[in-house]
Every structure is written in structure tokens, then in C-alpha cells.
């Protein structure tokens, strides 16, 4: 099997790569969302700490 045959998936390329492509996209965006949430939580903490120090 060569690469063009591999990507063609015997005519089922849209269905097979559509499945794996979306799964990869879901995982990557979930990781990005979780990282972003952590950044926000840490920023929030810094704000709380700074306002506490100023009092």
C-alpha cells in the first residue's frame, strides 16, 4: 500500500479521516480549554492576593 492509497481509504477517506480528524480536534481543543482555564484561575488568584496586600 502506498501513501496515496492510504489517504484514499478505498473511497472512504471522508468518513474515516472525518472521524479521526474530529476526534483529534476535540482532544486538542479540550487541552487548550483546560490550559486556558488554569491561566484564568491563576490570574484571578493574583488579583485577589494583590488586593489583599493593598489593604
Amino acid at each position, binding site marked *: 500500500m502506498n501513501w496515496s492509497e*492510504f489517504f484514499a*481509504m*478505498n*473511497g*472512504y477517506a*471522508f*468518513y*474515516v479521516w*472525518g*472521524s*479521526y480528524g*474530529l*476526534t483529534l480536534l*476535540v*482532544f486538542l481543543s*479540550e*487541552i487548550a*480549554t*483546560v*490550559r486556558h*482555564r*488554569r491561566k*484564568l*484561575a*491563576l490570574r*484571578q*488568584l493574583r488579583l*485577589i*492576593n494583590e488586593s*489583599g496586600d493593598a489593604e
Partner: protein
Amino acid sequence: MAINWFKYSAPSTFYGLAGKLIPWFAWPAAILFGIGFYIGFFVAPTDAVQSEAYRIIFIHVPASILSMFIYLIMAGYAALGLIFKTRLSAMMASALAPTGALFAFISLWTGALWGKPMWGAWWVWDARLTSELILLFLYLGFIALQASIEDPRRADRASALLAIIGSVNVPIIYYSVQWWNTLHQGSTIKFSGTSMHVAMQQSMFIMLVACWLYAIAIALARVRSIILERESNTQWVKEVRE
């Protein structure tokens, strides 16, 4: 000497533990996804009936299994939080919900992409498909309910009830192919053995383990943020530095 199991149920202790555990789940998950994909696409033979389209099952089946298991674990944590009022249990339930919802979504999406060439339809109102769709709505309902109630403890109680009641749907999904005459096929792998090629089984099993490890890693990462958000008024969180 008795092990103090409750030690790690304190958010302050669990925060550090979860941070140390994440790479031990995340890296094996990434490696196993690679191995599972390799076996599924380069070792497993072409199917005689479904040609290459059958390769969708290597992600479809693990995602579907995970969507059901995560729901039960989420409902279990929610119940623990309701009964013992442990803060961490409720936080774990909220950390699992988005991941479970995403696995349910992947299950439905890959199922549709398999159904179109094989059944000739993206979707049918079959008992298996419909109950899996209800599972996705239960996850979304859980997330929405929690977001809609401002007091976190009230939100936990309300969403815990929803999670527990909704868990009756999981056995319905599992047994739907036996109870009703569904278009969706029954399980290929049974306790009595299987007709599946060994490489197909290996790929599916490795992908399943990879999905498990991924789900654990991402839920631990998410619960760490939830702990910081909810415990922001405590002294130990104020001392957390990146």
C-alpha cells in the same frame, strides 16, 4: 497502621497529588494512541464487507464505552458529595462532565460517519443511537444546571440529583441492542469469544486504554483549576504560585 484515605479527599492535598499524577497518565495516553492507530491502520487487514470504512470503530467503540463509564463515575462522585458532603467529590463530578460530553459527541459523530456509507443514513431513531443522544443531553444538562445556580453547594446538590437519576440511562444504552430490535449491531466482542481479527481487537483495546488515560489526565488537570476557583478564599490557595 491505617492509611488515612481522607487525607487525599482534602482539596489542598489533592491539588498537589493531581499535579504530580497528570504526566503519568498523559504521556502513556499519547504513546498508546500512536500504537493503537498504527496497529489499526497498518497491521489490521481490510475488512471483507466494509472495506476501509470499518477502521472508524477503533475510535468509535472506545469513545462510546468511555462516554458511559465516565457518566457512572461522575454520578458516583456526585452521590458521594451528596451523602458525605465532601467538597472534592462534587469538584470531581464537575471536572468529568465536559470530558464525558465530548466522548458522547465523538461517539455520535463517528457513528454518523460510519452509518452513512454502511447503512445509507447519518442518523436513525434507533434505541442505541437515541439513548446515546440522551446521554449527551444529560451531560449538557448537568453542566448547564451547575452553571445556572450561583451558590456552588446548591449547584452541586441539584446537579448531583440530575446525575444520579440520569444514570438509569446507561444500562439502557448498554442493553438497547438486546432489548430492542435495533439497526445498531450488537457487540462483536463477547465473553464467549469473538470473530474479530486479532489485530483489530488489539487496536481497539489499546485505543480504549489510551482514551481512559487521556480522560483521567484531562479530568485531573481540570479539577485543579476548579479547586483554585472554589477555594480561592482559603490560605493555602493564596500561597499557590505557578
